[in-house]
């Protein structure tokens, strides 16, 4: 039964499509196109199902959300004698330093910075901004330091996407000289307690 069906099918096929050269050629081409289309669609569907959530299209939107998380985590200001006069944390999702730890950090950093200035090779440059420690890189964050010619250090802890923070730190220096130094109720080398300074600094940090 099968063979006779096959024979009749074969003869139908032969008579209609394969007898003439032109129709034979067209059939082959069209069936090749049809096969490739079907195969591609089916395979793509299968592949998408298999690798859902792992491809670029899926994570690129998430990555742009992650970009909003790029920010300045905290700001510290250290005075001439190594005491901490300002510390503020802007990222509530990470672990916070206790005030004692922050003081110890400030004193330690002051010492290390002074050491780095002294052991730097290549002689002493006159630029205070190039002396000592400028950045410290770790796996999770980067610490930027900016020392003024008068010996005050401005430190910002950011994520790794920020490579250079000199203009932000310079702006913090300007804010410090405006809202802390011009405040009649601020004594030098003491902790900075000024609402205006806090507000302006918050605005600056949020813009970066």
């Amino acid at each position, binding site marked *: 039964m099968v063979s006779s069906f096959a024979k009749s099918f074969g003869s139908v096929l032969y008579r209609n499509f394969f007898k003439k050269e032109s129709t034979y050629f067209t059939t082959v081409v069209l069936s090749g196109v049809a096969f490739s289309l079907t195969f591609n669609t089916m395979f793509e569907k299968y592949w998408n199902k298999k690798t859902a959530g792992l491809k670029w299209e899926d994570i690129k939107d998430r990555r742009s959300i992650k970009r909003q998380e790029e920010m300045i985590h905290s700001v510290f200001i250290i005075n001439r004698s190594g005491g901490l006069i300002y510390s503020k944390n802007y990222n509530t999702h990470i672990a916070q330093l206790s005030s004692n730890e922050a003081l110890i950090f400030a004193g330690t950093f002051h010492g290390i910075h002074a050491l780095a200035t002294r052991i730097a090779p290549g002689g002493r440059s*006159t630029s205070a901004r190039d002396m000592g420690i400028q950045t410290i890189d770790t796996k999770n964050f980067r610490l930027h330091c900016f020392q003024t010619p008068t010996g005050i250090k401005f430190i910002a802890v950011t994520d790794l996407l920020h490579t250079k923070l000199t203009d932000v730190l310079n702006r913090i220096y300007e804010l410090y*000289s405006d809202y802390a130094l011009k405040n009649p109720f601020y004594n*030098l080398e003491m902790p900075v307690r000024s609402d205006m300074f806090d507000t302006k600094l918050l605005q600056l940090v949020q813009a970066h």
Partner: protein
Amino acid sequence: MSAKQYKTVGEEAWKNNVEKVNAELFIFTYGSLVVQLVKDYEDYTAVNKQLDKMGYNIGVRLIDDVLARTGLEKCADFHSTAEVISKVGFKVFLNITPSVQNWSSDGKEFSLIIDDNPLNDFCELPPRAVQDGLWYSNVFCGVIRGALEMMQMQTEVYFVRDVLHGADVSEIRVKLVKVLDEEVPANDE
């Protein structure tokens, strides 16, 4: 940096980076302060000293303001320091440029010649004040002394002559006493 470069720095900062206020308000306020001091102390030498002290408190803070706005670095030598004081410092705060003259032979003393002091604009000293030697703008001396101390230079700054006493120009003498090695934490006097 040459004197010309410092001049440009000062002028640029004055034009773009500095917020301005009416000069006469400033002049009258300073005058009111001096009169208050005269009333409180009743002795012109004590007033001189108090003006210098107040100038020192201003100077230790003012230096950071200049550095933050102009981005200047520590000066290589005392000559550059003199240029910065006259062409940047005075320009940014008072919009005047005193000239630097009368260098001593060892390069450690110089004079600032101010021919147009804004504080003198509406001021005339009573004869007693002239006789007892009140230096009306003595606050400048304190400011310079305080600012330089923050840059590790101990100095003596004093008035030599003043227009209000009848001279042609006002002259402030700045003398470098020594360079401080350790960083001295600042304290208000």
